[in-house]
């Protein structure tokens, strides 16, 4: 009987300002701002080959230098942010929209149907995201669209699993029994009681999946299977710069930092959001 009282005390204690959320939001905010800026302004015309020297180091005219094909690196970074965000949003969107309902359905349907969902899930889980994306690229050709849908499909199992595990524990709580005792139907219980209570976990999962999707897209572009030549992508920039790693290291470092920045940003944002969104952790 002391347990609930102890919980009460920890809950009512004022939580420190959530630094993780702020740092994550700032990092992600910079990416979003970068992508937004690229819609209206870029230093040079997108992907244009300039009449200037190749392999320039960062300087006053070309802030982040120029690449092998005499294109402005800063312009490419701005445009690449757009690709990165698009890939993340679509991939996570596909995964969450399919994975979360599947997970709740599997948790609520005991017996063969729930088992069927989770075993098919296991089969999908056996395929690494990259392998699935490479298969898709082989069938439908390499493009950003194919890459992000493939990454999304490959991410469904992780959403379904996290959702099911957490939904199972929610379904065992007394307030779900109480809701049933009050005459609530299964759909209403799923939407009003299960979903809000698994949301915080899904959000954390989404941020991690977002980071993984960014990395997967970069890896695909690096392998030449994702975003095709002539379209901006940080992974593509890495691929094109690898042969000049020694002579022009900034061409690898700059997109590398951009990728690391966004992955870190989304991971921190997810952690911070979890703490912030959970009403159980809210101040009195």
């Amino acid at each position, binding site marked *: *009987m002391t347990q*609930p009282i102890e*919980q*009460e005390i920890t*809950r009512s204690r004022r939580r420190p300002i959530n630094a993780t959320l702020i740092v994550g939001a700032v990092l992600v905010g910079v990416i979003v701002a970068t992508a937004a800026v690229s819609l209206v302004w870029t230093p040079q015309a997108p992907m244009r080959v300039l009449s200037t020297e190749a392999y320039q180091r960062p300087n006053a005219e070309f802030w982040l230098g120029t690449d092998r094909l005499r294109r402005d690196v800063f312009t490419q970074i701005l445009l690449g942010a757009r690709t990165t965000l698009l890939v993340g949003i679509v991939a996570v969107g596909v995964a969450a929209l399919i994975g979360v309902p599947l997970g709740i359905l599997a948790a609520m349907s*005991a*017996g063969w149907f729930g088992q069927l969902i989770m075993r098919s899930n296991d089969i999908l889980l056996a395929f690494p995201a990259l392998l699935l994306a490479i298969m898709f690229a082989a069938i439908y050709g390499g493009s950003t669209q194919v890459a992000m849908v493939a990454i999304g499909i490959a991410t469904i199992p992780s959403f379904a699993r996290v959702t099911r595990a957490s939904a199972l524990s929610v379904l065992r*709580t*007394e*307030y779900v*029994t*109480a*809701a*049933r*005792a*009050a*005459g*609530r*139907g299964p759909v*209403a219980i799923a939407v*009003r*009681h299960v979903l*809000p*209570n698994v*949301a915080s976990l899904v959000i954390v999962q989404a941020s991690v999946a977002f980071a993984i999707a960014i990395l997967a897209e970069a890896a695909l572009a690096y392998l030449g299977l994702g975003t095709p030549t002539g379209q901006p992508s940080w992974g593509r920039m890495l691929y094109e710069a690898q042969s000049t790693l020694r002579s022009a290291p900034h061409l690898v470092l700059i997109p590398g930092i951009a990728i690391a920045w966004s992955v870190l940003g989304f991971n921190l944002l997810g952690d911070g959001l979890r703490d912030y969104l959970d*009403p*159980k952790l*809210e101040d*009195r």
Partner: protein
Amino acid sequence: MGAAVLSVQGLGVATTRTPLLADVSFTIDSGERVGLIGESGSGKSLTALAVMGLLSDGVRANGTVELAGHEGNLLERPEREMAKIRGSDMAMIFQEPMTALNPTMRVGAQVAEVMRIHGTEPSKAAAKSRAVELLDSVGLPDPANVARSYPHQLSGGQRQRIVAAIALANSPDLLICDEPTTALDVTVQALVLDLIVRQAQERDAALLFITHDLAVVATVCERVMVMYGGRIVEAGPVTEVFTDPRHHYTQGLLAASDLSMPDGSRRERRSLPTIAGSVPGAGHFPDGCVFRNRCEAATEACTEVPTWHDRGDGAGYACVHPLGADSSSGHGARDD
């Protein structure tokens, strides 16, 4: 006392392998307050869940459960129809107020929800203002403000009042309370008990009160049923059962509790006697009399399931060697 609201006949609950409840029969009239007592694991909560139709998958109930105003056996009704009855004609208050409310919904919305489900209050706004009235009626100060709170912002006692408000929202004919005060501290217990009894009486509802606290039963209930090993072993008016128990298990329970007797006498303070042994796990109760492996008076005759000795008016006991009577055999009419 009004007409029978709940009538349970020969209720049994079992998993595919293990029987959990057997031959549970009782009726509760409107306005009547009946206690169901017994140690943990004796099947009290399971009885409540079976009546409500809330048994988990893989656990089956048989027998008949009849609720006034609804024809036929509730156990045979499809889930969809049961959902309509639950929360409107019968409602339940749960043991643990910390977990009986959804942590992500404001409590006012949770109270309003139950009225919206059953169409008691057709409009959202009406349901909301009615929810605030209900919170006021269960004695919550500043109900409008409480309605906007999340469960974690409220104390255990406040939460249990909200759980009570939800259960009472549609004025059920039958209110089942599953250890509603066990998780509360003593001062709050008295308030919540008083509230539940008063609200149930206002609505003339039948009250089934599950607890293992004999003192609570003595203050709240008129009649009590003692449960052990998934069977009702003794039943009768509270004063009768508590002063003149017939079943050895009832006697053990009374001896093990620090209950001041209804006649005002109080046992002298010393270490309380206990019932020898512990409650076996489900399915590991002895056959025949379920209590015989812990009973001092057990004999060869106890290997047969003891018959129910009816003492009239819902009272009776199931023991071959009853206390306070001729120990060779029971008396009175058989009723099964």
